[in-house]
């Protein structure tokens, strides 16, 4: 019997038992739809992260202080106050591949405006920050060199901060806010940057570095003007590796580090950040996929269950077919193909539902969802495999039936 004909017979059987077929494939439909939607969310998160990291500029190097350690207890990366403003200036002056080196000092403080307050990341830096981070003021202006020179008490607010402490319709530029009890005049509002992983890029207040040292953070007793990190922009994307080499050497010289002593600073490039983010995303996507996989497994068992019921209900039919000359392989292929046609129909509906669902999720949650052709092809292959795997056992039990016993069945 031709394959085409077997598929036709199987399809007829499915249509004859509409309600049961629909209930049977529901598990597969939900499973496949879940796989596609969850993979789309995972892929979307990945794409979003990549986009944001790339938006930071591809030729960026972060320098962080190393771990502070007291008698072999490490307090974690970035906790030591080993980087100073002088280090930053030295990098700017000495390293030929470096375009700009921007010192950044950050600390979590309370910001107030007329009764409303929020705890936010105060970032003290220099005007070049905007260029290097590719993060500009949307309204008003960014901090200027003049602000820095005159220790002006001015600040630029991130979107989230504006939302948190200003009411609707209040224009923040020109208003004064209290940062750690000190009055600062708002000169600008930053553009919207969005959430990057777990960090809200808009939950930020930017002040001039000089003002920050003067009235917010103070200076470190032993190292003077320490910085939390240094942002370096490299002249050209090809010069990232030379720049890393130059910066490492300058800082080792300045910090008197002689191998085998470890560096008291770390360099991170965009590539490093991308890699970290991607590995996090990969785990995330895999977890989502595994969750969906479980529902597929349950769906497959549903198919096996109904196929077994179908075989025992149709014992007489199998007996008749055998009596008039059906061989083992005829009965086997009839039931396997029935299971596969069932699971493929479920899979096809699931794929459509998954595509629609991904769009809906993207639309209503605001997340980016990316349906890859890979996940569609995978779902399709998986649904064939489920039909084959969970159909073969019931089909074998049908094909092995003794025709005499099968004919006697009611």
């Amino acid at each position: 019997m031709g394959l085409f004909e077997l598929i036709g017979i199987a399809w007829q059987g499915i249509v004859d038992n509409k309600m049961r077929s629909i209930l049977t494939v529901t598990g597969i439909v939900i499973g496949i739809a879940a796989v596609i939607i969850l993979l789309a969310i995972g892929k979307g998160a990945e794409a979003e992260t990549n986009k944001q990291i790339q938006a930071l500029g591809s030729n960026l190097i972060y320098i962080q202080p190393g771990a502070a350690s007291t008698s072999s207890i490490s307090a974690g990366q970035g906790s030591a106050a080993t980087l100073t403003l002088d280090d930053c200036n030295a990098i700017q002056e000495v390293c030929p591949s470096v375009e700009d080196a921007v010192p950044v000092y950050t600390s979590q403080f309370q910001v107030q405006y007329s009764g409303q307050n929020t705890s936010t990341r105060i970032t003290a830096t220099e005007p070049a920050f905007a260029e290097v981070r590719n993060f500009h003021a949307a309204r008003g202006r960014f901090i200027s060199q003049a602000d820095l020179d005159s220790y002006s008490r001015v600040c630029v607010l991130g979107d989230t901060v504006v939302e948190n402490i200003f009411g609707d319709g209040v224009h923040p530029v020109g208003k004064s806010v209290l940062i750690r009890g000190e009055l600062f005049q708002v000169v600008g509002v930053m553009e919207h940057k969005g959430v990057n992983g777990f960090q809200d890029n808009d939950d930020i207040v930017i002040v001039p570095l000089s003002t920050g040292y003067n009235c917010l953070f103070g200076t470190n007793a032993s190292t003077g003007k320490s910085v939390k990190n240094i942002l370096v922009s490299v002249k050209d994307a090809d010069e990232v590796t030379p720049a890393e080499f130059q910066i490492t050497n300058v800082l080792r010289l300045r910090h008197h580090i002689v191998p085998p002593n470890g560096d008291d600073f770390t360099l991170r490039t965009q590539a490093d950040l991308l890699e970290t983010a991607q590995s996090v995303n990969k785990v995330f996507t895999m977890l989502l996929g595994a969750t969906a996989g479980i529902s597929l497994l349950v769906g497959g068992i549903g198919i096996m269950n109904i196929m077994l019921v179908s075989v025992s209900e149709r014992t007489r039919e199998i007996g008749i077919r055998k009596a008039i000359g059906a061989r083992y392989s005829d009965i086997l292929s009839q039931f396997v193909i029935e299971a596969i046609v069932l699971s493929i129909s479920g899979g096809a509906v699931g794929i459509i539902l998954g595509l629609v669902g991904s769009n809906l999720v993207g639309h209503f949650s605001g997340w980016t969802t990316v349906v890859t052709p890979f996940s569609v092809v995978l779902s399709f292959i998986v649904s064939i495999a489920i039909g084959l795997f969970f159909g073969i056992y019931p089909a074998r039990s049908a094909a092995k039936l003794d025709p005499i016993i099968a004919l006697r069945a009611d």
Partner: protein
Amino acid sequence: MPLIELKDVKKIYTLGSEPVRALDGINLNVETGEYVAIMGASGSGKSTLMHIIGCLDRPTSGEYFLAEKTVQNRTEDELAAIRNSTIGFIFQQFNLLPQMSALNNVMLPLTYAGMSLENRRNRAEHVLTLVGLGSRMQHKPNELSGGQQQRVSIARALANHPKLLLADEPTGALDSHTALELMNLIDELVADGMTVCVVTHDPETANRAKRIIKVKDGLIIGDEKTAAHTKTP
């Protein structure tokens, strides 16, 4: 050479620890073109005999030749092929597939024989016309009367040019008038040269045959020609 040749055929089941001798040494020859009735009470072994003649079951011991070919030591698939090409079955309960039209039911054995769709359709239409159902080919079994359903099953049995027609209580589920019509149809087939074997416990049906074989306790206890035999030239 006879069409059916059984030599000391035994079928022994083990029911629990008791061996049940369903057939206890059957010797039987049926020539091509014969019309034979196998009679016996239930439990006599006539059903087992029919299963063995129909290649649905294999004897425990003894030899069985069907159309000059040996049947024992065949695989399931080989038996299926023999059933498909050599034997046409007619059952008491018709045993049509309820979801298929009469035409598709008749086409089914041809499908398993590997015939092309067009040839199958032509052959099925031909035999359905032969049994007088030319106008009801697209009807499903539940849209047909009992007599019509049995005609479909005869058409199905004839579809693949069988050498032997094996009928198990063919009139058991029919009223007497329809049963008579059906037996007339079988007479016609016999007149055309078909070998027919009817298994029944109904004397009236059996007496239509030309030879009656009586079975009891797994043995043949009688084998005689009937009045119908002497009547026909």
